[in-house]
């Protein structure tokens, strides 16, 4: 796939294009996570009508184009390879648009586009499970990536560095729904928080966890006046307090000085993230995370199933929820076949993990050469060719190395199918 004619391009820019934040940075030999810039993927307007600033985020989801410009214009695009991520099952016209913008507007030297899960596997997965093992330099063979992001939760089996298409499963619950659900609960029960998306998101990040036994915790919250679960969140007023504080409930409400506004967070702490396991609680007719993991695993060939179950990696913002790993393990073990081991790993920084994988890929010169597509080739063959080429790469799933033959046969198939 890598043409010998492709010029040597010194820089590799890795961008993990998420709905909430874009993770971007250059790949160099000694890149560490702090080199990654997380850019909120939104245009926001504050209370005083200033666009793009302000903490009262009334954010609007734009399809990339605005924040996309910022990191790109800083670099000399012509000497840069861009590694960019996309959503699984993204609409084809949007992919084509993206390709065109990348090559024609920004004029990147070379380009590789893939779902974030395919970048995850370039990380050293072995390190997650057995710290201290030797560093690997190739993509992990079999990884089940559970990517729980802002809009969706995806389960994607990645076999030999390629997504296994029939195994991709999705629940429509992501960080956004969790925040909104929390917002709804607070607004009905205590204060109207409907317009305070940003604050509620901070509450979610600071105190939500996944309960091992929600029934028991629910009972604890109901029956006992004082318990370990109920906490108090002091809301910021943006005069004296700029960030909310989580604390134990006070015995006495302080009087006299200007009373601070507080929210009592009780069973909301674990009932909101519970949506990942029971999307039905708000009316989604979808099964929970353990079920789709098993569905996804069972759709792969039998020889891969034990491997996938033993290499589950949780990434995305929701992977930071405490207790997710334990709960998932507890629910998956009874569902898995008897002789299978269930191993779940959460990287230190699940949000930037896909980006780190992209960096690993960017540093791996031979692999990058295979994957990327040079601008000269694009200009010669056009965007339809590029789209097929990108799809063809994911077609080369099981036979690594025989990629070009598989790609051309897939092109034939696509051509024979009108519509």
């Amino acid at each position, binding site marked *: 796939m890598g043409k010998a004619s492709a010029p040597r391009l010194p820089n590799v820019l890795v961008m993990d294009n998420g709905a909430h934040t874009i993770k971007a940075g250059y790949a160099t030999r000694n890149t560490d996570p702090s080199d990654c810039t997380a850019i909120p993927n939104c245009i*926001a307007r504050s209370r005083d009508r200033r*666009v793009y600033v302000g903490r009262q985020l*009334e*954010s*609007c989801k734009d399809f990339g184009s*605005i924040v996309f410009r*910022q990191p790109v*214009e800083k670099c000399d695009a012509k000497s840069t390879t861009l590694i960019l991520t996309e959503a699984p*099952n993204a*609409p*084809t*016209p949007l992919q084509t*648009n993206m390709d*065109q*913008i990348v090559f*024609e*507007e920004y004029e990147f030297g070379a380009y590789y586009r893939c779902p974030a899960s395919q970048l995850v596997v370039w990380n050293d997965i072995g390190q997650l499970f057995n710290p201290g093992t030797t560093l690997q330099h190739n993509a992990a063979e079999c990884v089940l990536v559970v990517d729980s992001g802002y809009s969706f939760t995806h389960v994607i089996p990645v076999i030999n560095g*390629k997504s*296994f*298409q*029939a195994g*991709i*499963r*999705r629940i*429509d619950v992501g960080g956004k729904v969790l925040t*909104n659900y929390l*917002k*709804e609960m607070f607004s*009905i*029960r205590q204060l109207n928080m409907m*317009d305070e*998306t940003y604050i509620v998101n901070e509450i979610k990040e600071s105190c939500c966890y996944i309960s091992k036994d929600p029934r028991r915790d*629910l009972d604890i*919250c*109901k029956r006992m006046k004082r318990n370990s679960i109920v906490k108090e969140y002091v809301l910021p007023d943006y005069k004296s307090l700029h960030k909310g504080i989580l604390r134990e409930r006070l015995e006495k409400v302080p009087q006299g000085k200007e009373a601070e506004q507080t929210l009592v967070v*009780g*069973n909301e702490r674990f*009932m909101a993230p519970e949506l990942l396991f029971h*999307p*039905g*609680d*708000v*009316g*989604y*007719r*979808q*099964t929970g995370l353990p079920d*789709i993991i098993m*569905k996804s695993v069972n*759709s*792969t060939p039998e020889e891969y199933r034990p491997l996938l179950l033993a290499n589950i990696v949780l990434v995305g913002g929701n992977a930071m929820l405490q207790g997710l790993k334990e709960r998932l393990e507890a629910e998956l073990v009874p569902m898995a076949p008897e002789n299978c081991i269930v191993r779940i790993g959460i990287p230190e920084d699940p949000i930037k993990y896909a980006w780190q994988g992209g960096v690993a890929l960017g540093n791996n010169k031979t692999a990058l050469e295979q994957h990327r597509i040079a601008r000269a080739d694009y200009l010669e063959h056009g965007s339809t060719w590029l789209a097929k080429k990108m799809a063809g790469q994911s*077609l080369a*799933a099981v036979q690594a190395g025989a990629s070009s033959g*598989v790609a051309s046969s*897939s092109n034939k*198939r696509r051509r*024979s*199918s*009108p*519509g």
Partner: protein
Amino acid sequence: MYPTVELLPNSGKTGTTGASSWYYSNAPPSQSVSAMPKPEDLRARKAKTAAVASITAPSFATTAASASDGTSDVVVKLDPATVRRINELEKVNWHDVQIKIEAPFSGRKPGKTQNVRRVLASQKTFQNHLSDDIANHELQLQNPLYKPDPYDPATTPLGYVRSVAEPPSTNATRYRRFCEICGYWGTIGCLRCGVRLCSGECEATHKEARCTRRF
């Protein structure tokens, strides 16, 4: 919220492409979908409605499983209240806001080539693209000429609609319900409006502040 995608009856000869609010067809106008259906092909119409229903609501595609094996007669419908609630949960802002972008970040006007200018000038929203994609995928699967050969699960994409999680198999109609006031199990219902509540205490709070329907 989601635009309706109408599937045309698709034979091998009349190639059609459809999208959210339009379609191309080389069938004569009398046979177009907008022409009134004849009373005798009620069966065809019924089948068509089932097909339409299965692809209209992408985010709660309830028939993903049933449609894939060709039996799309079991269409689980979500009640409007649930649909409304899910739509609200998926909103970014509670109120609809329009944020205008004042000026581009750089002085240069974007759009070096024709393709880029076309992309930038496109009025299509993400929803349009999504429903296009869904419709195209369905059409492709229904096309008799489309036979992936051999079917390879590793490489044939499932598509947006079919990759969604299936509804729970056990006791699919009943979900856990919680008290509106405190979040505990909602074992009783308000006699006036049907909202789930846990105890008399919460019921009193609810009746005082939140009960909307009065007989």
